[in-house]
C-alpha cells in the first residue's frame, strides 16, 4: 500500500515530461500572441485560464480578427469537445476520493497529455492527480511568459522546430499504444485516414479543422469499438 505523499510525488514526477513539452509549445504561443499585438500579461493570462493548445491558437486568431463572441464560443466548443469525452473517460477511472469540489477543480487540468497519463492509471486517486496537474500548469504558463518576453529574438528556424513539439507529444502517446495493441493501431490508422480525407478532398476540406478532428476521431473510435471491441477496458 502506497502512502499519500508518495502517491502525490509519483504524480508530480509523471508531470515533468509533460511540463517540459508544454514549455516548448506554449513558448510558441507566447511568440505568436505578442507578434499579433497582445502584451505579455494578456498572453500569460490566456494560457493560465485556458490550459489548451489548439483552442488558444484559434481563440487568439478570433481576437485579433475581431470575430464575434458566438464564433469564439463555438470554436472553443468544437475544438475542445474532445476534453468532454476525455472527462467522461476519466470519470470512469476516478475513485471515490475524487468527489464534489475535487471534480470541479481537477477538470480544469484535463488536457490531452494529462489525460493520457491519468488514463494509464488502474484507478485514479486524488493524491496522484493533484501531483500530476502541478508542473504541466507551470510549464504552460511560464513557457508562454518566456515566449512572450523573449520570442522575438529567436530566428524562424527555432520557432519552426518548437512548433513540432506539440505534435511530438501527441506521437509519443499514440505510437506506443498502437505498437502494444493491434486494435489501437487500427483506431489510429482509421483516424489518420479520415483526417486526411477532410484535409485533401475538395468539398470536405471546407469543413473547419476543429470539426474535422472531432468527426474523424469519433468515427474512427466508434467504428473500431463496433467491429473490434476491446476486452481489457
Amino acid at each position, binding site marked *: 500500500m502506497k502512502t499519500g505523499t508518495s502517491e502525490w510525488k509519483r504524480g508530480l514526477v509523471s508531470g515533468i*515530461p509533460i511540463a517540459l513539452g508544454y514549455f*516548448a509549445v506554449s513558448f510558441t504561443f507566447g511568440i505568436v500572441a505578442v507578434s499579433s499585438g497582445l502584451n505579455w500579461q494578456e498572453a500569460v*493570462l490566456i494560457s493560465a485560464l*485556458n490550459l*489548451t493548445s489548439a*483552442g*488558444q491558437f484559434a*481563440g487568439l486568431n478570433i*481576437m485579433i480578427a*475581431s470575430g464575434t*463572441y458566438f464564433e*469564439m*464560443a463555438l470554436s*472553443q466548443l468544437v475544438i*475542445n469537445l*474532445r476534453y*468532454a*469525452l*476525455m*472527462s*467522461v*473517460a*476519466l470519470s*470512469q477511472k476516478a475513485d471515490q476520493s475524487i468527489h464534489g469540489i475535487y*471534480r470541479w477543480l481537477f*477538470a*480544469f487540468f*484535463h488536457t*490531452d*497529455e494529462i489525460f*493520457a497519463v491519468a488514463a494509464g492509471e488502474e484507478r485514479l486517486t486524488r493524491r496522484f492527480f493533484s501531483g500530476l496537474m502541478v508542473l504541466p500548469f507551470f510549464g504552460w504558463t511560464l513557457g508562454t511568459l518566456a515566449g512572450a518576453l523573449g520570442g522575438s529574438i529567436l530566428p*524562424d528556424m527555432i520557432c*519552426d*522546430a518548437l*512548433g*513540432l*513539439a506539440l*505534435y*511530438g507529444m501527441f*506521437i*509519443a*502517446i499514440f*505510437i506506443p499504444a498502437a505498437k502494444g495493441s493491434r*486494435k*489501437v493501431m487500427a*483506431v*489510429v490508422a*482509421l483516424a*489518420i485516414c479520415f*483526417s*486526411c480525407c477532410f484535409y485533401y478532398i475538395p468539398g470536405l476540406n471546407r469543413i473547419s479543422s476543429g470539426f474535422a478532428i472531432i468527426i*474523424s*476521431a*469519433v468515427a474512427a*473510435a*466508434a467504428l473500431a*469499438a*463496433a467491429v473490434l*471491441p*476491446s476486452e481489457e477496458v
Partner: protein
Amino acid sequence: MPLGTYLPYLLIMAAVTYLVRALPYVLMKKKIENRFVKSFMAYLPYAVLAAMTFPAILYATSFLWSAIAGLAAAVVAAYFERGLFTVALSACFAALLAEVLIRYIIIT
C-alpha cells in the same frame, strides 16, 4: 489590445473551455457497463491525437521536408518508447537540422 476588447473574449474562451471539461466530469457518476461505450472511450483519445497530428504536422514548419524529418524522428523515438519529452525534443532537433540544411546548403 484595449482591455474592453480583450476581456470579453478571454472570459468566453475560458468559460467554454472549462465547462466542456468540467460538466461531464461532475455529472458522470455511474460506471459505464456497455461494452461498445467502454471500448469507444478507450479508443477515443488515441483517435483524437492521431487526427490532430495528421496531416497537420506536415504543414507546421516553413518547409515540408523539415516537417517530414521531425515526424520521422518522433515516430522512431516513440516506437522505442522514449517518453513524451524525448520524443518532442527529437522532433524539434530533426526539424531544426533539416531547416539548416535546406536554408544554408541546398538553397544557396
